[in-house]
Every structure is written in C-alpha cells, then in structure tokens.
C-alpha cells in the first residue's frame, strides 16, 4: 500500500495540484481562465465517458453490470441519509445545511474518479468500462434525497414553479449529459470510433488532467483560505471521516457483487468522493438557503485533496485486499 501511496504522491497529477495550492497560498496571480477550466471539465467527461462506452461495447452487457448500476444508485441515495444523521448528531449544522453537505458526499467527484483510474493504470490494475456508467448513475440520486431530507425543515418554500428547472439541473446537468452522452456514443461507435478520436481523448488525457488539477489546487486553496475559519471542528472532521464511511459502504457493495479489484477500487472511490461541480450548482437552485461556503469548503477544500493524496491509494489497497 505504501508503494502505491508514494507513487501517487509523486505523480505529475498530484504535484500539479500541489503547485496550484502553493500558488494560491503565496497569492500568485496564476489563474486558469474560467472558459478553459470549464472546457477541460467537459473534455475529461467526454474522454472518460467515451472510453467507458467503448469498453462496454467490447465486453457486452452482463448481470454484474446491472447489479453494480443498482448498487451505485442505492449508495448515492443512502449515503446522504447516513451523512445527514452523522452531521445532525455531531455538528450544530441546520437541517438544510446538513442536507446540503450530505448530498455532496452521496454524489461523486468525476475528477477523483479519473485520478483513481490513472492510479489504477500505474498500479497495473484493470477495471470494467461500465464503471463510468456507474459514475453517471451516482451523480443525481443524492441530490433528490437531500431535497427530501431538507424538506421537513422547509415545508413551505421552494419550487413554486421551479420544479422543471430543478429537475433539469438534476438530470440533464452538463456533467451527467456529457458523461452519459459520450458513453453512449462510445458504446455505439466502439473500437473503430475510438481509433478516430483517440489522439484527442486518449493520448493527451493525462496532460490535460495535470493542467486541470493545477486549477483545482488554486480553487481549493482559495476555498480553504476563505472558508476554513467558518467551519466548526465536527464539520471539518466530517470532511475526513465521511469519505471513509463511504469507502466502507462501497467496499461492502463491491464484495457483495463480486467486482474485480480494479472495479471495486473505483466503486469505493466513487462512494468516498464528494461532488463539487454538479451538486453545488443544483443545490444553489433548489436549496438556496443552504450556505455554499460550508459545503464547498468541505468537499473541495478538505475531501478532494484528502482523496487525491491519501484516499485513492488507500481505496486501491482496500480493493486489492478484499477481492
């Protein structure tokens, strides 16, 4: 396990993330234009989605595939309930804020997922292409569950005709759509399709990821600088133990289904990761009463770096031990 951890820590990916953190802490003017950051995010989802679809078109549908899709949806819906309970029991967060935070940890971080696939490649482990479909499936249920959890506190207010807007934001947000769309296109066009666009979506992938993580470092550090002081200790700790709770649940599901080590590592990573793109955008619309600085600082400032540096090697090791 230590070897994976070490390899991970000195990978260009993690080091560029650290460079971003550093640049932000010394208040450098280094920044990646928003248009580029947004496009890189779309690119990563296009690439990972497409490759997953191609993989699946090679291996075909299977019972395991459906089992793990269902497991993903269930994990995404149940983890917020657990998280919500833990937060309400330990921290003084309001019902709405606790629900909002919990939603992030039920949903997933596609960048953490991508980083895990890279670490798997370095570790020489294979994974199933459909794991990308699992990632797509896990994005949204957590958001709906969180809205239900918050509802009790908030009976009267939201939606008033906002339902369709929010529904779109949950199911057709750009992450979900790009991931699923590219997955389907990859599935339809298969290997020959992949060959035509591999020099765009496969070869430069890791390099783009490095630049993207540089930007994530800049943003995470800014989040930490401005938001850390506002978080109480129990909330802060949640950002560190909740990934492990998620990882445990994911590991259990992986064992039940009998996934391979690589796929198990990814299911664990998905469960352990916290969203910071799709969920914040959806919640801002659906639950404006929740405080963004709490859930953003936690998921992007604490959990993301934790997963990137420590979590991923741990989850791979766990998967290898358990399978």
């Amino acid at each position, binding site marked *: 396990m230590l070897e994976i951890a070490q390899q991970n820590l000195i990978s260009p990916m993690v080091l560029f993330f650290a460079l971003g953190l550093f640049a932000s802490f010394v208040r450098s003017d280094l*920044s*990646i*234009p*928003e248009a580029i*950051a947004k496009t890189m995010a779309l690119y990563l989802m296009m690439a990972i989605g497409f490759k997953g679809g191609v993989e699946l078109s090679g291996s075909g549908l299977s019972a395991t595939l459906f089992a793990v899709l269902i497991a993903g949806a269930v994990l995404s819906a149940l983890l917020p309930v657990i998280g919500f309970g833990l937060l309400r029991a330990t921290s003084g967060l309001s019902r709405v804020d606790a629900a909002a935070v919990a939603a992030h940890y039920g949903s997933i971080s596609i960048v953490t997922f991508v980083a895990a696939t890279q670490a798997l490649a370095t570790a020489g482990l294979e994974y199933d292409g459909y794991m990308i479909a699992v990632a797509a499936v896990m994005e949204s249920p957590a958001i709906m569950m969180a809205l239900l959890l918050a509802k009790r506190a908030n009976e009267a207010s939201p939606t008033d005709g*906002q339902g369709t*807007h929010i529904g779109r934001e949950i199911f057709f947000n750009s992450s979900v759509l790009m991931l699923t769309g590219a997955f389907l296109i990859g599935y339809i066009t298969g290997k020959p399709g992949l060959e035509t666009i591999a020099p765009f979506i496969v070869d430069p992938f890791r390099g783009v990821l490095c630049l993207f993580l540089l930007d994530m470092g*800049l*943003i995470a550090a*800014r989040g930490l600088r*401005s938001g850390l002081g506002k978080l109480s200790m129990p909330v802060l700790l949640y950002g560190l133990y909740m990934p492990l709770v998620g990882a445990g649940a994911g590991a259990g599901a992986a064992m039940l289904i009998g996934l391979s080590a690589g796929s198990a590592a990814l299911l664990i990573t998905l469960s352990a990761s916290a969203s*910071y*793109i*799709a969920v*914040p*955008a959806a919640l*801002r*619309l659906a639950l*404006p*009463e929740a405080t*963004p*600085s709490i859930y*953003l600082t936690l998921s*992007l400032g604490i959990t993301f770096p934790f997963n990137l540096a420590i979590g991923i090697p741990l989850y791979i090791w766990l998967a290898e031990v358990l399978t």
Partner: protein
Amino acid sequence: MTLKTHEKKRIEIMIEAAALHRIIEVLDRFGVTGYTVLPALAGRGMSGDWQRDDAFGDTARIVSVVCITDPSKEEDVLLATKDIVERYIGIVSVCDVKVLRSEHF
C-alpha cells in the same frame, strides 16, 4: 436641449447566475420589453467575496441584469426582484435615464 427625450428607469440587478432565470421570469411577467445581462469578474457583498476564475459552475458567479423600462413598471419589478435577491444572493438599484425612442421600452 431641443431633442425630445422620455424619462425611463434603469433597473440594475446584480444576481447570482444560478438565479438569473428567476429574474427573467419576473421581467417577463410584468411585460418588460428588453434587458441585457452583463458578466462580472469579481465582487464582494454581505455573503462574502468571489472571483470568476476561482469559482466553479454558477455557484457564486454574479451577473448584472440591466433593464431600461417605463416608470409605470418600476414598482412591480422592484418588489418582485426584491423577493428573489433576498432569497438568493444579489442587490437591486434604480436610476433615472432618458431615451429617445419611447415606444421601444
């Protein structure tokens, strides 16, 4: 000034991008004929400061909605947008302007 001008109101609404569609729904509802949305780079307010290149998605991004409209619609629009900027993040202000083609507004 010999040119015939007409008194209108210039309503400026700074609102987080995620709630922009709600503002536009209000403008629609009261029959406001036109508006323009300008991007912003950075800012500060009661809810803290933000910077476009350091934020993700629409979460904290502010846009400025400029709407030149007839004084008769001012009150309705102000009241309705007030509700939104109180629930989401934003501010509203109004100033007097003159325009030439009254029928256009």
